[in-house]
């Protein structure tokens, strides 16, 4: 009993976006206990934690010892005190009392030990979890965009929830339990062997049988669990798809048909869940009753030995003497055998959770081991001012003038004014080495120019802009920013100098104001309102219930798609960058509003470089240069008039003879 009973109530599974396959995306098959993973977990413990952990082991030892003695002391009580007293008819209880007091002392020690290690474990476990969690997130921030492209978000999320939770269970529950079980097993086993070898062998046979049986059932239930997971994945996938398309279902009156298919899948899940659970539920009664059976067998065997001993059938010495046993010993042995079987069962059941936790830990470490975005840049962006001789010098205060600080090998430092000139020289790029998606891209954007990209989906428009801010690194060629190779520029400074409005708007939970301020943390409220006015978002924001303090949740679910885009434009505007990238930034905004936004943007972007990607040709028509991309190659370039006159692809697009896809 006692500490073995302690279980932390299972946490409600923290909500996470259901991934397509439902359930936990975790493969336990073939996972072995990896000492490296265990070592790794320990590495998250500070020195203080290690010391604490040693205390824990000592405490668990004490606590288990007290526990074991609580079953051993019955023998002592019956054989050592009650029996003799009955025989003598004495009524001197002082001996018994002092024995009980000694036990009480031991028990008290055990209780204190139990309390101590439970407390310490909380500190250690939670400390480790926090460290792991924080490190995982911090490291995740440094990972390249590619990582996020290639890993499903649901899968990453589940590492923060499910995997961390299995780790918690292992550290705070399994580890202490296994230690205490081990102590109990060792102590009871020794006690059993000293009291009776023949009976001990009976116990060993019974336990072996029990483990064999448990293993069989576990493997059966495992099979059905896999099936259940598949069925669950199927049902969850269907639910997800249908819930997303629920409005379409209604428009087409497909409710009945949808229900029909759902019911079928649901039935299948029920069948598998039933079978899987059935086996799990059997485990308890089977183990329990096998334990009882073992008890009966021992009682019978022990009884016969006791009777034979009492009848003097066994010699005092020699091999046969090991069969000697007293009635009291039998009673105590029976108690012992129960104390022995319980932890054995517990360990066998805990193994499963250890393996699960190992798998979880491995998935967490996979994230932490992922290689960070490389940044060898040494050119940084600094506030600048013109010196007396018109040269640029660094300054601490914000001047609105920026310069690239370029330290050279010879120890000198030069400053280059931030202008926003971008040049591509024969750039090739592929998301992987086999498949190059951009070929020989050369382009030249003068400060203050508006450069537009037009082309079908997959032609490489977005990819080009992703190279400028180094979300991806080019395979071949060169990109220069104000004459500096962008590989030399610190990534954070490079990105700070670029304002980006992306196709998919992403707003964060927080007020409208906080969302706009995301672009520039030092922006005053006035600057924020100014930016919102520029983006033509001010009027609708003012109409929101709490204006700029309206809380946005769920990626701004309470706004229309167009309104979300306006906010993200304001966010980029408040950052006031010399170069702006607009990737389908106005696709959901009606043309009239777009024209207004454009006007504001034009005012803002005066003298700054803008890259525009748009589907709507009206958005790009007034650009200085329009690049038409096809399959990663620039096939046409020029102004709107040039390209119309050329009567090429752009002309076809414009006249509607060709469709953008």
């Amino acid at each position, binding site marked *: 009993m006692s500490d073995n009973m302690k279980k932390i109530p299972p946490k409600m599974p923290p909500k*996470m976006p259901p991934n397509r396959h439902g359930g936990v995306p975790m493969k336990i098959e073939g996972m072995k206990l990896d000492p490296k993973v265990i070592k790794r977990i320990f590495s998250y413990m500070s020195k203080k934690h290690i010391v604490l952990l040693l205390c824990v082991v000592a405490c668990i030892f004490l606590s288990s010892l*007290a526990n074991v003695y609580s079953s051993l002391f019955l023998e002592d009580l019956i054989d050592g005190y009650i029996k003799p007293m009955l025989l003598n008819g004495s009524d001197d209880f002082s001996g018994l009392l002092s024995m009980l007091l000694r036990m009480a002392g031991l028990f008290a020690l055990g209780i204190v030990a139990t309390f101590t290690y439970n407390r310490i474990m909380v500190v250690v476990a939670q400390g480790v979890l926090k460290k792991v969690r924080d490190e995982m997130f911090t490291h995740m921030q440094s990972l390249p965009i590619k990582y996020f492209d290639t890993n499903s978000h649901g899968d990453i999320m589940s590492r923060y929830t499910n995997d961390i939770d299995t780790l918690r269970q292992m550290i705070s529950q399994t580890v202490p339990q296994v230690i205490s079980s081990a102590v109990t097993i060792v102590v009871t086993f020794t006690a059993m062997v000293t009291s009776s070898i023949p009976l001990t062998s009976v116990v060993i046979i019974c336990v072996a049988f029990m483990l064999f049986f448990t293993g069989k059932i576990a493997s059966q239930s495992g099979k059905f669990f896999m099936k259940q997971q598949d069925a669950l994945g199927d049902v969850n996938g269907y639910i997800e798809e249908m819930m997303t398309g629920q409005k379409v279902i209604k428009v087409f009156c497909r409710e009945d048909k949808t229900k029909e298919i759902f019911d079928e899948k649901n039935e299948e899940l029920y069948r598998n869940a039933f079978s899987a659970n059935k086996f799990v539920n059997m485990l308890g*009664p089977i183990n329990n009753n096998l334990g009882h059976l073992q008890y009966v067998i021992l009682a019978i065997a022990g009884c016969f030995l006791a009777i034979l001993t009492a*009848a003097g059938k066994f010699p005092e010495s020699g091999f046969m003497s090991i069969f000697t046993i007293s009635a009291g010993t039998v009673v105590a042995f029976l108690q012992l055998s129960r104390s022995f079987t319980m932890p054995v069962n517990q360990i066998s059941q805990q193994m499963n959770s250890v393996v699960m936790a190992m798998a979880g830990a491995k998935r967490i470490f996979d994230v932490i081991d992922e290689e960070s975005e490389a940044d060898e840049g040494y050119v940084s962006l600094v506030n600048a001012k013109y010196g007396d001789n018109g040269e640029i010098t660094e300054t601490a205060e914000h001047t609105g003038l920026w310069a690239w600080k370029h330290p050279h090998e010879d120890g000198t430092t030069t400053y280059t004014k931030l202008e926003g000139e971008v040049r591509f020289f024969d750039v090739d790029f592929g998301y992987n080495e086999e498949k190059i998606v951009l070929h020989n891209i050369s382009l030249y954007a003068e400060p203050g120019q508006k450069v537009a990209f037009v082309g079908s989906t997959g032609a490489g428009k977005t990819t080009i802009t992703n190279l400028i801010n180094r979300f991806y690194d080019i395979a071949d060629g060169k990109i220069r920013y104000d004459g500096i190779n962008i590989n030399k520029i610190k990534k954070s400074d490079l990105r700070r100098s670029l304002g980006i409005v992306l196709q998919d708007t992403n707003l964060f939970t927080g007020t409208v104001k906080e969302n706009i301020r995301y672009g520039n943390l030092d922006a005053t409220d006035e600057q924020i309102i100014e930016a919102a006015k520029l983006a033509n978002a001010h009027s609708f924001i003012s109409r929101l219930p709490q204006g700029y303090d309206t809380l946005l949740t769920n990626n701004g679910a309470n706004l229309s798609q167009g*309104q979300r885009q*306006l906010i993200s434009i304001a966010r980029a505007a408040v950052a006031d960058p010399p170069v702006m990238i607009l990737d389908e930034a106005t696709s959901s905004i009606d043309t009239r509003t777009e024209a207004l936004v454009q006007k504001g943007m034009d005012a803002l972007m005066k003298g700054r470089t803008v890259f525009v990607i748009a589907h709507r040709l009206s958005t790009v028509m007034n650009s200085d240069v329009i690049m038409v991309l096809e399959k990663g190659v620039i096939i046409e370039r020029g102004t709107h008039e040039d390209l119309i006159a050329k009567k090429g692809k752009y002309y076809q697009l414009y006249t509607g003879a060709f469709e953008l896809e």
Partner: protein
Amino acid sequence: MIKRLSACIREYKLPSLLSPVFVSLEVVMEVFIPLLMGKLIDNGIEKGDSSYVLKVGALLVVICLLSLFFGVAAGTYASKASAGFAKNLRRDMFHNIQTFSFASIDKFSSSGLVTRLTTDVTSLQNAYQMIIRIAVRSPAMLIFSLSMALSINAKLSLIFVCIIPLLGAGLAFIVSKAHPVFKRMFKVYDKLNTVVNENLHGIRVVKAFVRENEEEKKFRGVSQTIYKLSKKAEFYLSYNAPLMQISSYTAMLLIAWVGAKLIVSSGETELTTGELTSVISYTMQILSTLMMLSMIFVMLTMSRAAGERICEVLDEKSDLISPESPVTQVRDGSIDFENVGFSYSGDKEKLCLKNVNIHIESGETVGIIGSTGSSKTSLIQLISRLYDVTEGTLKVGGVNVKEYDLDVLRRSVATVLQKNVLFSGTVKENLRWGNENATDEELTEACTLAQADSFIRELPEGYDTFIEQGGTNVSGGQKQRICIARSLLQRPKILILDDSTSAVDTKTDALIRKGFKEYIPETTKIIIAQRISSIEAADKIIVLDGGEVSGFGTHSELIASNEIYRDVYYSQQKGGKENE
């Protein structure tokens, strides 16, 4: 809530009842076991009576086997009942969701519904299984063990009768302290998920604005709160084990002392050594049962939140239902808005559409134009009763839409939604959403009209090409055309296109409109568009501004009279006269 949820047990009532019955039987058997074991020791081992040992031993084996049988039966029925319960919960929710109005879908959001149908159901399934198994087992065990111990020796049993309430009170105190902390912790967990989720989705924004450090700060803040709260909650729980030990050790020592005195003083007449062993066994059993009960209590209170969320879905009643004796025929495609006002919340103070008075003849083509947030979509969603009007009346075919059978109305009014969805399945299967019995010829016909036939034929397997979930393997323009064809197959009296050709090039767009005019002239066509060119030729054009009709007339009328329309027109004409 419990009443609402238990209505989902239905055909699994029998296993739900059998399970506790078998559990109780199992408990009876298990309670007899220590009693018989005590007897075995007293009358058999102590007295050296081998035949008695065999006799009682055999009885014990039988009881064990019975207990095993009852246990397995109880487990089987429990899993059947709980899996069935979960099945019914999912089924009821899913079926009810199918009756949801758009307003209800908006209220819960797709992801909210998914969570309820998946995670929450699983959590209730586990809770239910626990109730019919362990929650019955523990009290039964408590009662039986208690009465057995009392029957052996009432005086001795008094000891733990005194300890039980103390332990119970202690456990209850711990739970009551820890529970609110856990509850707060789960809320913070939700917050952690939000932070990570938004970070993942917005990682490009984070990196583009170089906000990694701020994101880390945000995360560490939440992480620290979780650390603090879990430490606090688990500190409370760490009193559990010692409390348990104090109780059991104290009981054991006291029973040993009093028991020994009793045995010796009475010379084993009032109490035997075997009985003493039994009483101690029962004591341990009772105390551990109490522990179990406290755990169950904690778990149940935790799954209560899931139950509440599920009930919300089950209880959501659609106010958009067919009337008692519905009209089952839509006469024609005429539409009348009479003083229509609409608000998503149903609040007349916050109307997003006001005073709409429009008459549309059957067979007309009507364009709708308006700026971002001018309620164009809201307007057309009223026609097929995807939402109900808040004020005024809306008539289709001369009859109030509320008098129609919903299915009849929606089959006659086909809406091509702005945010449209294709489902995983072949092109053909997707098209047949419009009309399940459509022949291949009809499919081709509809696709030709929607200008989709030619590109579908070029797909790897033509009409049998598999469309991925969400239609990710076709382009935006292609998706839109398949969606239009799908709606055409409904052979509607009114066809509504909500910005449905935005990704289609102007030429194809024009062809689609031309096809409509030639092949489905009787169908009323309502087209929401950003491009004036898409609606220029319409019979009438509605100009919406801030939820009010600012202009209603033909292109030339509006050019002459409506400033907004003129603005939009010229903004799109600038330097683009050769457009078409």
